[in-house]
């Protein structure tokens, strides 16, 4: 007997955030594959998940692993920026255009992940530190460096 909520509610509550994280880590089609693998794997493991677990942090941890799998499978560097520029991303966060998200994908790996997990998935830095390894402060610094980089490199990203 568990008091766990139906898995469908997990998909409804976190599907969007996990998709945005996948899209920051990977190009569009690959992001879809990573999302699918993430939720299938999560569905398999869900009955064993402790009821006190932070479900979104758990999903992001799986998504990150799946993103790495996808990248390894394709034997290529994580940020094929030239390719991305030619594709529609389908990203539609209000107030942000695709250029910003391409700029995010162009960040160094750790900064990109920290920015994605904190600003896209909304995870606290303590959770991000567990995902990335290292300290909470290091996670916070990576996100701050990422934002500073974006501010420098993304036109219109500076303070008004």
């Amino acid at each position, binding site marked *: 007997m568990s008091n766990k909520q139906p898995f*469908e509610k997990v*998909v409804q509550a976190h599907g*969007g955030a996990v*998709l945005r994280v996948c899209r920051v880590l990977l190009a569009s089609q690959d992001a879809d594959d990573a999302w699918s693998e993430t939720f*299938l794997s999560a*569905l398999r493991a869900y*009955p064993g998940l402790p009821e006190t677990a932070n479900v979104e942090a758990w999903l992001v941890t799986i998504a990150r692993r799946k993103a790495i799998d996808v990248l390894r499978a394709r034997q290529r560097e994580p940020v094929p920026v030239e390719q991305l520029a030619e594709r529609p991303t*389908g990203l539609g966060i209000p107030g942000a255009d695709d250029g910003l998200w391409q700029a995010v994908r162009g960040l160094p790996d750790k900064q990109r992940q920290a920015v994605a997990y904190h600003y896209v998935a909304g995870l606290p830095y303590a959770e991000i530190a567990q995902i990335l390894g290292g300290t909470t402060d290091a996670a916070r610094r990576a996100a701050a460096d990422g934002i500073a980089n974006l501010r420098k490199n993304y036109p219109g990203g500076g303070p008004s």
Partner: protein
Amino acid sequence: MNDHEDLFTTPTTPTTPTSAADAAALARLHTRLEQAAHDEGLLDVAYRTVDSPVGPLLLAATPRGLVRVAYEVEGHDRVLDALASRLSPRVLRAPRQLDPVARELEEYFAGRRRSFDLPLDLSLSTGFRLLVQRQLPSIGYAQTRSYRQVAELVGNPKAVRAVGTACATNPLPVVLPCHRVLRSDGTPGGYVGGAAAKATLLSLEAAA
């Protein structure tokens, strides 16, 4: 001071409004997940809702068969929570898995079907209730029985009240026709979907 907010949604509101494009992508990915979950044998409970003359019905199935039909008054969310707790938390909205059920119900409500031919999973019921619920399909279309008659039918003529309880806790209303069981004086008696739903089903069957 947080000067990042001109760039990003703040982390205090992780439920960013989803755009139409994202919603379409998520719908497509959800369909893909339903299929993959089915293929991998992970779809412990599949569900969908259908509209009907007695209001929206929740339909839920395990790999063994239809396990639950629920009226809106029962609270669909509450029913899904109960299924997650009693059967498995691997509960996913997967409409296609319930296509055959939806089709038979549609035929029934159109007056074109008199009995259901579907695999059923009766694992939510036990003991005397299960015994009674199994007997319900023997009450033919457009016929009725009293609670007392059903008690006699299952060989326990004194268990009139228990038959009432078995009907009230029927996990598969409509499909297992507890709406055909009335009080001895001919008045309808209670119903899991409410008195109006019981009357609707009885007049539907009488008219067909």
